[in-house]
C-alpha cells in the first residue's frame, strides 16, 4: 500500500515538474531563497529575542526595554525584506516562464508583474502588507499575467516592446490586480477559514479528521493558513473550558479532552504543518550536498516551527510529492494522540505555552502527564520520519546532476 502511494507521488512529481510553469517556479523559488532565508532569520530573531513578548525575554525575565529601538528598526527592515523577497520571486518567475515560452525581451511583463503584485498587496493608507505566506496568490497573478502576455504577443507583433498595444496589456493587468485587491483586502476567505475552525464541530472526531487533511493541502498550495491551523491556538473550541475545569477541580475529567489544541495543535505541528521537522531531519542526512545545505539552513527556524526555508528551498510549495505523506503523517499523529487521550494514557494539554516555544516541547510541558506525553511525542515524531523516508528516498539517496 505504502509502495503504491510512494510510486503515485513520484509519478505526480515527475509529471508536474516537467511543465514549463513548474520548472520556472522551482528556479524562481531557488533564486529568491537567499532573501527569504534572511527574512526568516530576522523573523526568528524577533520572535526569540527582540519582540516585547519574545520567548527568551519571557522565559528568562529579561527587561525588553533595551531592545525596543532595535526591534522597531528590525520590523521596518523586515517589511523591506518581505517586499524584496516577493519582488525577486515575481521577477524571477516572470523571466523564467517567458524565457521558457520563447520570449527574449521580458522587461515590460517583468515591470508589469512587479507593479501588479505591489499594488495587489498595497493599500492607500498603509504600507503594502507583504507576507511570504501568500505564495499561491503571488504565483497565480504572475503566471496568469505572463501567460496572457504570451497569448497577446501571438496576436500583436511590434518591434518595440513598449509600443501602445503592449502598454494596453500592461494597463489591463494592473487594473485587474487593483480590482482583485479590492476583493481580497476584505480578507473574507481568511476570516471564513479562521472562524470555521473555532466551531464546536471541529472538536469532534470527524471535524478533526477534516481539519487534519485540509491543513497540509492548503499549506502545500501556498494559501495563507489561519493562525489557528498554523500554530497551536488557545482560541480554539474547548481550550479555555478545559483550562478552567482543570484549574478549578484539579485532575478531574475535562469537558473537551479531545479538541483541536490537544490533538492537532499539540502533535501535528512539529516544525510546522505536517511535522516538517521530520523532513528536515531526513534531509540533514541526505546524500545530496545541496539538500544537506538547505536542511542545515532550515534546521534552526524549523525547530521553532518556521518551515518556510524548506518550503521554498526543497520546495514544498506546489510539490505533489508531499501531498500524500503529509496527509498520512497528520492522520497518524491525530489518531495516535486522540487514542492516547481517549484511553487516558496521557492527560491532554491544558496549559497555554509561552509564545514562540517549539511545538515539539508543547506536549511535554503543557500536559499534566509530561513523561507520557513525551513518549507519545517521540513515537509520533519517529513515525513521521518513517512515513516521509520512502517518499524522499530519491532525493536523499541519489545525487542527481551534482558536482
Amino acid at each position: 500500500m505504502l509502495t503504491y502511494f510512494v510510486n503515485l507521488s513520484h509519478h505526480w512529481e515527475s509529471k508536474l515538474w516537467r511543465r514549463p510553469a513548474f520548472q520556472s517556479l522551482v528556479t524562481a523559488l531557488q533564486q529568491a531563497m537567499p532573501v527569504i532565508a534572511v527574512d526568516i532569520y530576522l523573523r526568528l530573531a524577533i520572535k526569540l529575542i527582540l519582540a516585547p513578548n519574545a520567548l527568551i525575554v519571557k522565559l528568562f525575565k529579561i527587561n525588553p526595554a533595551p531592545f525596543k529601538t532595535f526591534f522597531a528598526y528590525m520590523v521596518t527592515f523586515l517589511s523591506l525584506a518581505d517586499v524584496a523577497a516577493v519582488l525577486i520571486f515575481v521577477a524571477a518567475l516572470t523571466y523564467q516562464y517567458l524565457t521558457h515560452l520563447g520570449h527574449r525581451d521580458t522587461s515590460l511583463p517583468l515591470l508589469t508583474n512587479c507593479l501588479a503584485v505591489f499594488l495587489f498587496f498595497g493599500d492607500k493608507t498603509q504600507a503594502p502588507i507583504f507576507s511570504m505566506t501568500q505564495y499561491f496568490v503571488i504565483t497565480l497573478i504572475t503566471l496568469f499575467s505572463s501567460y496572457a502576455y504570451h497569448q497577446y504577443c501571438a496576436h500583436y507583433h511590434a518591434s518595440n516592446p513598449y509600443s501602445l498595444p503592449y502598454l494596453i496589456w500592461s494597463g489591463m493587468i494592473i487594473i485587474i490586480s487593483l480590482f482583485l485587491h479590492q476583493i481580497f483586502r476584505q480578507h473574507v476567505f481568511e476570516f471564513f477559514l479562521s472562524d470555521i475552525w473555532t466551531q464546536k464541530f471541529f472538536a469532534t472526531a470527524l471535524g478533526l479528521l477534516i481539519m487534519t487533511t485540509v491543513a497540509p493541502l492548503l499549506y502545500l498550495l501556498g494559501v495563507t493558513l489561519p493562525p489557528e491551523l498554523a500554530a497551536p491556538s488557545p482560541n480554539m473550541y474547548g481550550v479555555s473550558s478545559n483550562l478552567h475545569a482543570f484549574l478549578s477541580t484539579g485532575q478531574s475529567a475535562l469537558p473537551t479532552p479531545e479538541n483541536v489544541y490537544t490533538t492537532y495543535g499539540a502533535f501535528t505541528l512539529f516544525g510546522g504543518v505536517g511535522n516538517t521537522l521530520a523532513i528536515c531531519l531526513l534531509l540533514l542526512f541526505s546524500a545530496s550536498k545541496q539538500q544537506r545545505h538547505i536542511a542545515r539552513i532550515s534546521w534552526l527556524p524549523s525547530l521553532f516551527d518556521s518551515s518556510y526555508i524548506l518550503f521554498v528551498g526543497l520546495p514544498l510549495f506546489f510539490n505533489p510529492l508531499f501531498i500524500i505523506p503529509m496527509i498520512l503523517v497528520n492522520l497518524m499523529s491525530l489518531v495516535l494522540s486522540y487514542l492516547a487521550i481517549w484511553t487516558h494514557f496521557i492527560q491532554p494539554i491544558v496549559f497555554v505555552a509561552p509564545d514562540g516555544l517549539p511545538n515539539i516541547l508543547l506536549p511535554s510541558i503543557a500536559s499534566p502527564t509530561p513523561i507520557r506525553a513525551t513518549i507519545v511525542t517521540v513515537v509520533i515524531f519517529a513515525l513521521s520520519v518513517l512515513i516521509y523516508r520512502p517518499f524522499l528516498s530519491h532525493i536523499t539517496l541519489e545525487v542527481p546532476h551534482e558536482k
Partner: protein
Amino acid sequence: MKNKLLLLLSLLMLIVLGFFAHQNIAQSSDKEAKLQNSRMAPIIFVPGSSATINRFDDLFKELNASGPVHSILKVQVNKNNQLEFHGKLNPQDRQPFIVVGFQDNDDGYSNIKRQTKWLNTALSALQNRYHFRHFSAVGHSNGGLVWTNYLEQDYDSSSFNIATLMTLGTPFNFSETSLQRRTEMLNDLIASNNHLPSNLDMYSVAGTEDYTDDGIVPVESVLAGKYIYQNKVRSYTQITVSGDNAEHSSLPENPEVVNLIQTKVIHPDKKLIQK
C-alpha cells in the same frame, strides 16, 4: 559529524527551553488557579484631581450603613511608583471597596496619562496580593477619565474582567461647553475606543445645578462620553441627577447616586431579578 553536533546542540537547547518553559507555565498556572478560584470581586474607586484616598469616606459610610458591611482598603500610588496601603481587606468579603488614589493628583491631560499608568501598577499589585480577576469600577470626575484611559490603553482582558464602570461627573471634554469643540483628550479617547471591553456595562452620571453644569463640569462635557462608549461596550447609560447635592464635589454623596451605586454596581443582578 556536523549533523551530530547540530542535533546534540538542538537537544540541549530544547532541554533548557523546556525546563524554563515548564517553570513559566507552573508559575502562571498557579496564578491562574488562584484567580480562577477567587470569589473576590472588589469595587475599585478612583477619585478626581485634587482629591485624596479619603474622598469616598462619606459614600462608604452611607453604603455600609444600608447593607452588608464592605471592608475598605485604600492604596496611594506615589510619584516614584511605590504603593502605600491603608486599611485591610476581610478575606471573607466578596465585594470589598478599594480606593486607588495618587500622590500627584494634579489636573490636566498629561497627568491623567501618568495616573493611568499608576492605576495599572496598583491593579497589578492588588491582583498579586488578593488574586481577583473580576471587579467593578467607580470614577469620580477625572477618576472616570483615568478609568477610561486605562480601559483603552492598559486593560488586559486575559488578566481582568471588569463588569461595570460608573463615572460621576466625568468631564470627557474637559471644560468645553460645546460638543462641536473636541479637546485633544476627547479625540484620543474616541480614536482608541475600539479597545474598550465589549462586555462592559457603563453608567455615566451627570449632575446639574442650573441646567448647564454641576458647578464645575459642563453637562455637555459629561454627555461627550457617548462618543467614546456608545456601541463600543455592552451597554451605555447616561443618567442626570439634579437638586440638592448634585454639585460636582457632592455627587458621590448624592442619595440618587448612592442608590445608583447600590443597584447598578454592587447588586446589578438583584436589580434584574426584581424586574
